């Protein structure tokens, strides 16, 4: 009998926590209790960086993290947070679940991690205190919460906004005091933690779709039998369904806050075009700045996109 410990910052009652628990239950059932996954959620083992480091070193067996801490294993991974990376939702899903192992697998292996599947974070939206950002110029000169990634920084600079990098837990207090006026956050996550209560104007900018990772420490993986490795495939099998659930829940939550009278703004084609135009050429610039590893990573992504169609 083997027990593997899986760590995540996601609350256990969130869609991510529930998915992890359901995978654990399925594996327990499939293996007749031979292989157990103990999910430790709610950031009990620390923030995402800490969890990822513990996974690399085999202190926890399985880690579920967003794209943000992945820059620990290589700054080039930031390419995945660049705006409008994918042409359509379907293309993004196809790249994530059919090609990501080829694209990012080697980087993870180098860091001592074996990918199990890829984790949907949802689309980024824009939360604002005063007014929605119908076009990105609305953010010009404003203090804007961004994630601590080079791609978010570059995008904020493009928009003429003052990008203030901070963790997700600092965002609500910063919006409250006015330390920032707007925030880029994944929509589902942002609403789940109550960001809309301090920054009610939600612009559904859907400008990025970061993909996180579920991976097992190589140190733990080596100790598993072939049979046990087989059972772990439940992660991979249920990945795409989890992605659909997250995207669906995000939409449902947006509708719910909209129904409660909150100003949720959906962009028309012209506005979307303006948002997209604001990030034109940004990816190439960023890749050049990040070096050859990023160039080849982007090449792989483009090949996968072509393969998936639009």
């Amino acid at each position, binding site marked *: 009998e083997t027990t593997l410990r899986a760590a995540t910052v996601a609350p256990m009652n969130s869609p991510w926590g529930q998915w992890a628990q359901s995978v654990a239950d399925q594996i327990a059932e499939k293996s007749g209790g031979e292989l157990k996954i103990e999910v430790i959620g709610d950031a*009990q*083992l620390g923030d995402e960086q*800490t969890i990822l480091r*513990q996974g690399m070193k085999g*202190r926890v067996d399985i880690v579920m993290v967003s794209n943000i801490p992945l820059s620990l294993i290589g700054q080039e991974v930031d390419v995945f947070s660049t705006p409008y990376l994918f042409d359509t939702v379907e293309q993004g899903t196809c790249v994530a679940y059919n090609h990501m192992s080829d694209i990012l697998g080697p980087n993870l292996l180098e860091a001592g991690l074996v990918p199990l599947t890829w984790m949907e974070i949802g689309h980024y939206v824009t939360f604002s205190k005063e007014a929605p950002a119908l076009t990105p110029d609305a953010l010009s000169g404003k203090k804007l919460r961004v994630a601590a990634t080079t791609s978010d920084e570059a995008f904020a600079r493009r928009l003429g906004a003052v990008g203030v990098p901070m963790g997700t837990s*600092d965002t609500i207090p910063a919006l409250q*005091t006015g*330390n920032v006026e707007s925030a880029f956050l994944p929509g589902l996550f942002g609403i789940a933690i109550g960001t809309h209560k301090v920054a009610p104007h939600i612009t559904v900018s859907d400008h990025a779709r970061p993909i996180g990772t579920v991976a097992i420490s190589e140190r733990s993986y080596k100790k598993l039998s072939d049979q046990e490795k087989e059972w772990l495939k439940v992660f991979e099998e249920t990945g795409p369904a989890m992605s659909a659930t997250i995207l669906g829940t995000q939409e449902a939550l947006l509708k719910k806050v909209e129904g409660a009278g909150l100003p949720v703004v959906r962009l028309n084609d012209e506005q979307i075009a303006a948002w997209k135009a604001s990030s034109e050429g940004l990816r190439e610039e960023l890749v050049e700045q990040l070096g050859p590893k990023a160039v080849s990573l982007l090449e792989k992504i483009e090949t996968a996109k072509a393969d998936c169609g639009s």
Partner: protein
Amino acid sequence: MEATLLLGTVLLMLVLRQNVVLILLVVTAYIQVVWSGGTVLYVLEDLWSSMDNHVLLAIPMYIIAGKLMARGSIARDLIAMVRAATDWMPGGLGMATVLSCALFAAVSGSSAATLLAVGVVMYPALKESGYSEKFSIGAVTSAGTLGILIPPSIPLIIYGIVTETSVADLFLAGIIPGLLLTAILAAYSMVTNLGNERGVFSLVRLLTAIRKGIFALMTPVILLGGIYSGYFSPTEAAAVAVGYAILVELLVYRELSAKDFFDEAVSTAVMLGTLFPIVAVALSLKSVLAIEGVPGDFADWIQATFDNKWTFLLALNVALLLIGCLIDVISAVLLLGPVMLAAATHFGVSPIQLGIIMIINLEIGLLTPPIGLNLLVASGAFKKRFAEVSLSVIPFIVLMIAMLLMVTFIPELTQFLLD
């Protein structure tokens, strides 16, 4: 067996005169290796990852700022200003003592710093004006504890870190209880000393003092104003405090030398060197406890034991007051914060209110023997016997307990500014 061995090791280390940092490191290593199936390496990893936290960054900054202000002219001018405004009233100098502590508390994160900065000036002044020995020492020692309730506050920062509560919100929540306690202590100081020597009111003196002290007076305005109008985070405010203190001392008073800054920075490093490992070890233990489900079990036990919120809160206060006698504020917050939070959540007590309740209890703990930091600092600084200082603070403790009960049973006191 394993627990006995651990206890034996701790006792042996105590007998062999080992310091707290080593004892805690050994205990954590033992727990990681024996109970959690890890290695000693994990202790070092946790040490690093717990220090790698931007909220923790605020602590050395507030300590340096407080030290610079206490050393230079800022504290002196704050006190001169308060005195000019109040010492002509009956019992005015007693009131001035409390108000000076409150004002200095608004720039300092610690109670010992507040006590020393104000006490060094006000304690002799009180005695010269005929205030009793007992009142004089009691007032500076007790009002010094306002340093950790009125923001900024180092224990509140630590509570924010271990319970993942917004430090900005905690600071805001501390303001009303802090001002109320100041008013209560000031009123008491005034009415019990009506017959003492009074100063003469002079508008010229007051205006001169305000003109000289305006830079000092601006410090809390800049810090809190800056945080709540969005110019900087609580962490950044600490750096702004250091920058402002240096600027004022350098440009206005011209009394601060590079050597002063060097000395204060080094003594801060030493202080942090004793504190960091303890914080790190507590956070490391916290994650072990979390894995074992201890906070949840404790919350269940609390829920089964107390049938309603009010009996729970009363019991919580009694427990914290007893604990406050024995351990220092920071350790108490580190060890009890997460566990108490789990229990309080069951009864619908907000993390913010719980934080302020804990801080007031531990503030009283600074005044209760055998381990009462302010008692120790006062008896050292003013050359008084520990027992004498302990007796002098009793009336103030009674007032603080009254304040504690108000904060416990009127959640609006902590909630009002947040809404």
